[in-house]
């Protein structure tokens, strides 16, 4: 299975952020239409793509906080942090305006990060980040999967 296939297979399983209200009501996150989001992503201009990728990167720093703030960190937690860091390493490289990637290559990078997120247990973070990034750059109504 190549990276594209893996991302497509898992597209239905990525979910946007859950919301918890002060009265205790919880609204679960909605499925993210990954293919639609990535297609629209490739049509964004460079600045908007940067904003998209920065939102994902920023969320991933919170994901690392979530693992390391509660000692002791398990071996699984360390493995997760390594892979989240790897994702950040790639994201921050491709955002550099002096060596900017093509829109297609950036979309492929996101596919790869999605694949890794399922293999290393941070798919919940990627779903949340992808939905929020799309909602803030592409448009809130285009993120969730059509029923």
């Amino acid at each position, binding site marked *: 299975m190549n990276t594209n296939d893996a991302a497509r297979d898992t597209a239905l399983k990525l979910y946007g*952020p*859950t*919301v*918890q*209200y*002060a*009265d*205790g*009501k*919880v609204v679960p996150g909605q499925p993210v239409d990954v293919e639609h989001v990535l297609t629209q992503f490739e049509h964004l201009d460079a600045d908007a793509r940067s*904003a998209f990728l920065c*939102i994902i990167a*920023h969320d991933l720093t*919170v994901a690392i*906080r*979530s693992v390391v*703030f509660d000692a002791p960190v398990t071996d699984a937690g360390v493995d997760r942090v390594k892979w989240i860091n790897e994702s950040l390493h790639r994201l921050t490289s491709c955002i550099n305006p002096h060596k900017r990637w093509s829109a297609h290559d950036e979309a492929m990078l996101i596919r790869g990060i999605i694949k890794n997120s399922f293999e290393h247990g941070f798919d*919940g973070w990627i779903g*949340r980040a992808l*939905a*929020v*990034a799309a*909602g*803030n750059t592409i448009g*809130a109504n285009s993120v969730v999967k059509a029923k």
Partner: protein
Amino acid sequence: MGADEIIYAPIPKPPPLRRIHSDALYEQDSDARRSLEYHRTRTTEEIVESLRPGADESLKVKPDGRIFQGNTRIKVLEERGYPVNDLPRDPIP
């Protein structure tokens, strides 16, 4: 109580918010202090909007109430007497 009586359990409310960045951090770390000073220039409405679920830097909270994103903005709201525990949150694992 009859056998067919239904008992509705109340939905548990989320625990109070707790900042993971102490007040001392803003004295010790110049970047944290600059961030605090910046957010103090913003209106309450702007800060609340920036914390809403779906915003690019929404309020992210652990099940025990610890804030993993939004610490400085919550501190500013607390300084203004805003009821921060009424804010919707993005619960994180």
